[in-house]
């Protein structure tokens, strides 16, 4: 172990040769005789010691650490010289102790700082670890949320597919019903013509008796209705196809006006009586998007608009407009139908919210519409007043060149 500041200092540490040289020359001159400084072991540190010399102890704390020897020096002068030397040693020891204590203290302070530093490093490491854990947890939470969102979306889609299926079934059933009844009536008409064949001999009387004038015109009407029914079923199937695009969703560079026209074509024949669809489309810049998804959004918004007019029990117009400036593509779907109460409006974006019964073909709700628009970095706004109508506005950012 290194010797501390508080060790017992030796005389030769306190009085080095240079100090002794300077001091002793002066002391010798003062004493007026020969002087020698001896260490604790009696060896000379300065001058030459002789047996015959008088000696004075040099005391630092309690015991002599050396001696001052003199020859031809008066006793009180020797005592005075020893006192002076002792004084010098004490000054030296104070200086030595203070400076080595200072070094120890600095080392100790350094040691403390190092410990503090270590502690800081540890806590920094802990903090880092914590924040890493936190990040992992946040990521997990986000993933969970996204998964839930996706599940919700899927569930909603399923529900809307169910709605669609129910709607399609209903819409197909209806023409199928009269197709079947018309055809069976027509079949009965044919038996009447078979009857005529048996009674051809009766001539015109048989024609009259079998009321074949009526059968002929009615049969024509029945078949016309059947053809119309077939067309209607074909249209419904066509609409189903547009939904089948939704799932192979790849992004394409697309003109939203195309989507709007497509949706309008699909919806046109299906709008309730008294609803007119008007497109007011201005040229749009292309947008990288999922056209299948957007088709679905537009289709549903148009269908909702038409339904809102039907609900108002008066003729009306669904106005679909598009325009663009440097920043935004804006699409509005406006109807002058029933509108929404503030309460309905506030719930409109909630998942699964609908005011309509299953099978009415409501399609995806506004909540899904918004999700799809958000996925395109766009936003959706709803403006509606009861009895005045509803405007749904969609905004898509124009890609920067």
């Amino acid at each position, binding site marked *: 172990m290194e010797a501390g500041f508080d060790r017992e200092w030796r005389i030769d540490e306190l009085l080095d040769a240079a100090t002794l040289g300077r001091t002793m020359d002066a002391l010798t001159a003062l004493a007026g005789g020969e002087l020698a400084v001896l260490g604790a072991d009696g060896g000379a540190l300065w001058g030459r010691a002789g047996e015959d010399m008088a000696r004075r102890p040099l005391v630092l704390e309690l015991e002599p650490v050396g001696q001052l020897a003199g020859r031809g020096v008066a006793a009180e002068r020797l005592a005075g010289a020893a006192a002076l030397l002792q004084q010098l040693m004490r000054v030296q020891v104070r200086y030595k102790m203070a400076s080595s204590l200072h070094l120890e203290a600095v080392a100790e302070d350094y040691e*403390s700082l190092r410990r503090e530093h270590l502690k800081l490093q540890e806590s920094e490491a802990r903090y880092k670890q914590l924040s890493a854990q936190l990040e992992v947890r946040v990521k997990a939470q986000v993933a969970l949320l996204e998964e839930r969102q996706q599940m919700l979306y899927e569930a909603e889609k399923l529900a809307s597919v169910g709605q669609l299926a129910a709607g399609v079934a209903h819409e197909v059933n209806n023409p199928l019903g009269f197709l079947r009844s018309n055809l069976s009536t027509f079949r009965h008409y044919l038996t009447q013509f078979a009857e005529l064949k048996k009674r051809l001999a009766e001539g015109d009387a048989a024609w009259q008796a079998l009321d074949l004038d009526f059968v002929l015109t009615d049969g024509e009407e029945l078949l016309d209705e059947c053809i119309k029914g077939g067309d209607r079923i074909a249209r419904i199937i066509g609409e189903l196809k547009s939904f089948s695009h939704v799932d192979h969703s790849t992004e394409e560079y697309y003109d939203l006006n195309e989507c709007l026209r497509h949706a309008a074509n699909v919806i046109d024949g299906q709008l309730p009586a008294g609803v007119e669809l008007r497109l007011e489309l201005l040229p749009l810049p292309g947008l990288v998007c999922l056209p299948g998804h957007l088709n679905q959004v537009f289709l549903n918004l148009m269908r909702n608009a038409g339904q809102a007019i039907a609900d108002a029990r008066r003729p009306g117009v669904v106005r679909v407009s598009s325009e663009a400036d440097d920043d935004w593509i804006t699409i509005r779907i406006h109807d002058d139908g029933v509108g929404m109460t503030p309460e309905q409006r506030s719930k409109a974006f909630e998942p699964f919210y609908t005011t309509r019964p299953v099978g009415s073909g409501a399609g995806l709700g506004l909540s899904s519409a918004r999700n799809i628009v958000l996925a395109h970095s766009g936003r959706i706004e709803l403006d509606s007043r009861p009895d005045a109508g509803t405007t749904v506005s969609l905004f898509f950012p124009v890609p920067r060149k």
Partner: protein
Amino acid sequence: MPDSEAGRLSFKLVYYGPAQSGKTTNLLRLHDQLAPEMIGEIMTLETQDDRTLFFDLLPLGFRAPSGLLIKFRLFTVPGQVAHDGTRKAVLSRADGVVFVADSARTQETNNAESFQTLAANCSRVGLDFEHLPLVVQFNKQDLPDAVPEQEIRDRWSAAPWPLHFASALHGVGVRETFADLLRATWRCHAESCELASKHGLDEAGFVAGALGGG
């Protein structure tokens, strides 16, 4: 461990405590009141405003019947918080400690903080605080706002260390505190230093030698 070399056994005893509690005054009074065979000058390293910057040192000693020089070096530590490194260095290698507390009520937190640093610093400099010879002195009992002895005794009743009540400025209780530290020191080191067996020093002889005047 006391420092032993060539016919000399040296004990380092440290007066520890908050700034201005009276550590230096304890040493000054001991210098006046003790009369051992040998006693040196007080060496003070202090700044001009009279606050101990480094330490004070009072050496004293006596010869055991065996001829061994028993030496005591009494140190004070600087009380100011800024000197923690110095305090630790002075505390290093201590064979016994007097904790000098200031009895003034206003100084209670200072005392407590200082006592905590004593415990902490002991472990830093490798002293076993549990077994360190330690005496606690409540100084400045003469002050009008001094916490009364009974209150302090109640509060410290669970502590294992001897308590002393002093007025160092007036020389009261200083000797008794030191005597108690000598006893604790003897008990701690007698065996390893063969004080009784080899050097003919029992506890009473050890204390009497250091106090002197007996």
